[in-house]
């Protein structure tokens, strides 16, 4: 049972970013590998504010806004001119972008490890389960974010428009939808989710610029398992990845935990490419 709670706690960190990743994929049909670096930037942004004395949640808000702006800027500068290109080329460019962002952080902040000034407290226990207030906060915020995005997509005009553009961008433009503006809204939303996930990861880990690859793999695995057609599927995918990693360490062998994300991706893509909740998505 503790394993399940731990899996959910890890999933809670990955879920928002996985949803954002799927949003980007459904809108532009490419896998953005820089998600890890964007999360790290979110963590540093939140830490920066926290360092100035602001409480962590305000740092988190700043990270969300900063993440949104950064993704929009990176889309305009790097990905916009390459719109027509194949998924593979865009993946390569996103890896290069990830290297750049990491090193800009290293240039600005150096390589020392950082952390929020958060008192480290022993856990509370409840029905044999051990958890700390932070874990509750992380799970709570993550569920809130997932539901909020779900509600936005399902019930609001913008949500419908986003799903429409994701489904068929040319039809959307014929039907009078301002596709460029809707795409921008989608990017801002995804960037905000990356910033949020970055802040949540900062609560857990030492904040340092070497995390990007380690963060990117489970997020992409969660998105693919959840089904690249459906953003909400990504949240479910995150729980599955979290559980798979917990079980690997407990029963198989800890040093191979890094491979779990990849094995899961390979299995899903080979057996059920549309993942759990997704619909077959035709790709470039």
């Amino acid at each position, binding site marked *: 049972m*503790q*394993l399940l709670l*731990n899996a959910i*706690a*890890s999933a809670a*960190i*990955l879920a928002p970013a996985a949803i954002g990743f799927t949003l980007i994929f459904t809108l532009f049909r490419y896998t953005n590998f820089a998600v890890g670096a964007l999360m790290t930037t979110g963590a540093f942004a939140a830490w920066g504010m926290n360092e100035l004395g602001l409480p962590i949640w305000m740092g988190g808000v700043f990270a969300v806004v900063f993440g949104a702006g950064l993704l929009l800027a990176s889309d305009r500068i790097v990905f916009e001119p390459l719109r027509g290109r194949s998924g593979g080329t865009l993946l390569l460019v996103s890896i290069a972008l990830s290297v750049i962002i990491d090193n800009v952080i*290293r240039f600005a902040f*150096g*390589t*020392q*490890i*950082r*952390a929020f*000034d*958060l*008192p*480290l*407290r*022993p*856990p509370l*226990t409840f029905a044999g389960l*051990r*958890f*700390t207030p*932070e*874990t509750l906060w992380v799970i709570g915020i993550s569920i809130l974010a997932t539901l909020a995005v779900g509600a936005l997509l399902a019930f609001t005009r913008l949500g419908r428009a986003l799903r429409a553009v994701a489904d068929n961008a040319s039809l959307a433009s014929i039907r009078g939808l301002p596709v460029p503006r809707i795409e921008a809204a989608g990017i801002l939303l995804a960037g905000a989710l990356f910033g949020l996930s970055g802040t949540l*990861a900062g609560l*857990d*880990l*030492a904040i*340092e*610029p*070497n*995390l990007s*690859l*380690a*963060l990117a*793999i*489970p997020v992409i695995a969660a998105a693919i398992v959840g089904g690249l057609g459906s953003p909400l599927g990504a949240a479910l995918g995150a729980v599955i990845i979290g559980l798979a*990693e*917990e079980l*690997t*360490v*407990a029963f198989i062998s*800890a*040093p*191979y*935990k*890094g491979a779990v994300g990849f094995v899961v991706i390979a299995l899903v893509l080979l057996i059920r490419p549309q993942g759990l909740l997704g619909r077959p998505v035709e790709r470039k």
Partner: protein
Amino acid sequence: MKLSRRLFISSAAVTLAAPAYLRAGLAQSAPIVIGSMTPLTGGGGPYGPEKSDAHRAVVAQVNAQGGVMGREVQLISEDSETNPEAAVRAARKLIDADKVSAILGTWASSVSLGIMPLCQEANVLQVFSGSSDYLPDGDTKGLIFNLQPLNKAWAVALADLAVQRGFTEVAFAGPKNDFAASMGESFAASLEKLGGSIVGEPFYYNPGQASYRAEAEHLIRMNPPAIFVAGYVTDFVPVYRELIRGGFTGQIITLSFAVGPAFKEAVGDAANGILHGSPVPPIGKDSYETYLRLVGIEPSGQVQNSFGCMAYDEMNLCLLGMEAAKSTDSFAVADAIRKIANGPGERVTTFAEGKAMIEAGTAMNYDGASSSVDFQENGMLKSRDFALYEVKGGEDEIILTTTSDATQ
């Protein structure tokens, strides 16, 4: 085709021109070129800068006092990226392009071992800090000096500490890298010698992870009375956090460089109770404090820059060796270093004092900022004083110091 040929030639020209410009412009007679290779990125990132800063400070000081043999010392700094593949390429540049006489400051044992064949082949001196027990195996020409005791010596001290505090059953955990691997073996061996034993199997985890919850859970489930975690600060902080958050109440034992100021700031007063030890700079010793002030740090009675002080000694020894040997030939310098370090002779703590001794023709014994600096035949430290601490009220409180003699 035309464009690419022009681009290739111009970029090759840049590669050729740069070092020549460096050599001609700087000094009347050729300067003494020293390579400083420290981990500025990758796993060792948090520790590299203090080493390269120490090198730069010493070189600046020596040049201000007339350099070595009247020649200016030129320092070329490279990033080892805590990765042997990148380190080998950087070392090639230092050796073949910059023609360095020595490469100082490597930190990760995999890097020091990685560039060793290259340095041995080019007869380039290596002075570094590393603790893997495999380091001496790579040297066949007596051209390496290591300012840090090997894991064997380290493990003996920590095993003493554990047993003295009543922990005979200790679990071991660490990242899957060469440092932790050899530390795990030595710690298990020395614990057995003292009648204790490792709880379960030494537990290795994958460094650089998105979360360490699962690893901590594994350790908590074993519920050992104490755990020795041999991690770098980048993985020790999250693992420690998850252990506390997971409700582990046993004793945590680790290495001092994992619980420096950055760790205490990150974890706050939950750091109290941690037992840690390592070959440590003699707090309060004059040479250690001179080093700290040289790099602009006010001594605070705490363990500070435990790697920076070793880099300080690396550079002093190298330059004093050259001054004494009156040459930059590695073998002559190495012999000189052995005499300077092991003595017997007048105690000296800085390059200036040493230089005065050389001019006066009297023998000297260099007493460094990081340790008394006495080397064995294979370039490893003879003995090193260890300090063992307990974190109380956010401060490192000294419990005992032992001198662990690696030669037994």
